[in-house]
């Protein structure tokens, strides 16, 4: 079970880096209204996070002093790990400081020790500052504005006129998360930018996924229906086609400056090392009911051009297709 979760914990690698980068970018956007969640239910099967922060223990001590929470809340079981792709700063999440905010009576005498203002403020919109002061006392490592610092947990700022009890705050944080990701999805799915409303956007997303899945089915059917060919020698074909048509086609797809041709050739030749025999390459029989069908046939037949004019026409047709 351990190493499966190693993969979960590691950031999503490679190409989805762009997506996860934008995730973190988006998630860092509302740090002033940063998220504090108790997301026990999100990852039920996850192991407990190995690093236990010393502030955790200090927090527990202070919490027991204030006798605000029941003891089960203070156990490390109440912490959870946010999705791996989110900012690495938001590792550990606790809700206790917020719960303490809901008891202004207990907090104010404590806070008033620190500053003179706190005792006067009981309105909702000011609770955030109290919470900040309170958490300053309670937690060793945080600032009221969370933007640049690495924190073990994140605090929600209660906005004016909104409920500040823990449940609605958690709910709102969760909602913000979902909305941030929905925005990313809207960018990805074409035509979703103008639609407003979660239900419509989800509709579009569902349509898009279904369309893509159907396309995969059709394309695989199409490839299966390609006329069967005789077995080809992949390796020899690749070697013969230096600057092969496939490479050129993919150059058409990629940004040419980024992906030099030599690299493609080298990687392809490394991959295909199995020599097969060269059969009838020069007199291909395009018989319809030929039983010697080859799955590599679509690929091979692309590369079976040995006459320059044909390869030129293939390249041009491919490049046209990509444009």
């Amino acid at each position, binding site marked *: 079970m351990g190493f499966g979760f190693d993969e979960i914990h590691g950031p999503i690698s490679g190409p989805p880096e762009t997506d996860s980068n934008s995730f973190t970018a988006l998630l860092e956007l509302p740090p002033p209204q940063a998220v504090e969640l108790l997301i026990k239910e999100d990852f039920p*099967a996850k192991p407990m996070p190995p690093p236990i922060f010393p502030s955790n223990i200090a927090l527990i001590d202070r919490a027991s002093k204030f006798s605000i929470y029941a003891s089960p809340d203070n156990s490390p079981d109440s912490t959870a790990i946010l999705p791996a792709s989110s900012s690495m700063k938001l590792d550990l999440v606790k809700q206790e400081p917020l719960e303490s905010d809901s008891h202004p009576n207990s907090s104010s005498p404590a806070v008033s020790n620190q500053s003179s203002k706190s005792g006067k403020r009981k309105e909702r919109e000011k609770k955030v500052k109290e919470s900040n002061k309170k958490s300053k006392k309670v937690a060793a490592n945080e600032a009221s504005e969370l933007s640049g610092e690495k924190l073990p947990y994140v605090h929600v700022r209660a906005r004016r006129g909104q409920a500040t009890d823990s449940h609605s705050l958690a709910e709102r944080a969760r909602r913000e998360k979902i909305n941030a990701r929905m925005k*990313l999805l809207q960018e990805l799915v074409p035509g979703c930018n103008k639609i407003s409303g979660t239900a419509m956007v989800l509709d579009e997303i569902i349509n898009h996924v279904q369309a893509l899945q159907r396309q995969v089915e059709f394309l*695989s059917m199409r490839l*299966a229906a390609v006329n069967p060919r005789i077995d080809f020698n992949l390796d020899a074909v690749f070697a013969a086609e230096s600057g092969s048509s496939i490479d050129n086609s993919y150059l058409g*797809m990629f940004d040419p400056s980024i992906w030099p041709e030599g690299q493609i050739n080298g990687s392809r030749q490394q991959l295909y090392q199995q020599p097969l025999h060269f059969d009838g390459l020069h007199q291909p029989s395009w018989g319809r009911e030929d039983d010697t069908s080859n799955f590599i046939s679509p690929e091979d037949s692309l590369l079976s051009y040995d006459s320059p004019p044909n390869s030129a026409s*293939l390249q041009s047709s491919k490049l046209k297709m990509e444009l």
Partner: protein
Amino acid sequence: MKARMQNSSSSAALLKQEFLKKWINGLQTYTNTKKEMTILDRKNAIKLSADIAIASTRNFSTNWSRAVMADVSKNVDGSSKIVTEKILGRKETCIIKCSKNIMRKSRLLAHRRRAIRRTIGRTSVKAASAIAKELVKKRTRVLKRLVPGGKQMNEICLIKETLDYIASLQVQVDVMRNIANAADHQCLDSTERSLL
């Protein structure tokens, strides 16, 4: 924005390369047996290799790729096992088995959670917001069915996974379409030549 676009296009190109390599690798396992296959068998084999290839490009870092692999290894007959081994390598096939167990456990826990939630009362107020929520819930249910492995995910996870899944599907479709078009063009050209 421009930098991000460039970034994403080059990484999409890398993905396409990787997918193509793995797909062809998987297809090569069929070189011996293809003479007896019907067209449906061929289509299934092509699709299977493509799915395994695109799922393996994620290196098990996403839920949906793990779910795809788990499904594939569930319906293990000889050929699919060979394909997975070829594409992934021997060591990683045991990772699939472990991840299957993980998914089973998370499925049980998810059932328990859902049962608890449902017992917490339902209101029948027909407010506009309630209707909207109902619509959204319906659609999330549909989406959960579509994305592989979606049944065990909560909303946040689901949206993230669909994001990744859509991008991967796009890559898969692009590569397959290019190859299919090229094959068709080549077929047409060659039949023209043979007629002449």
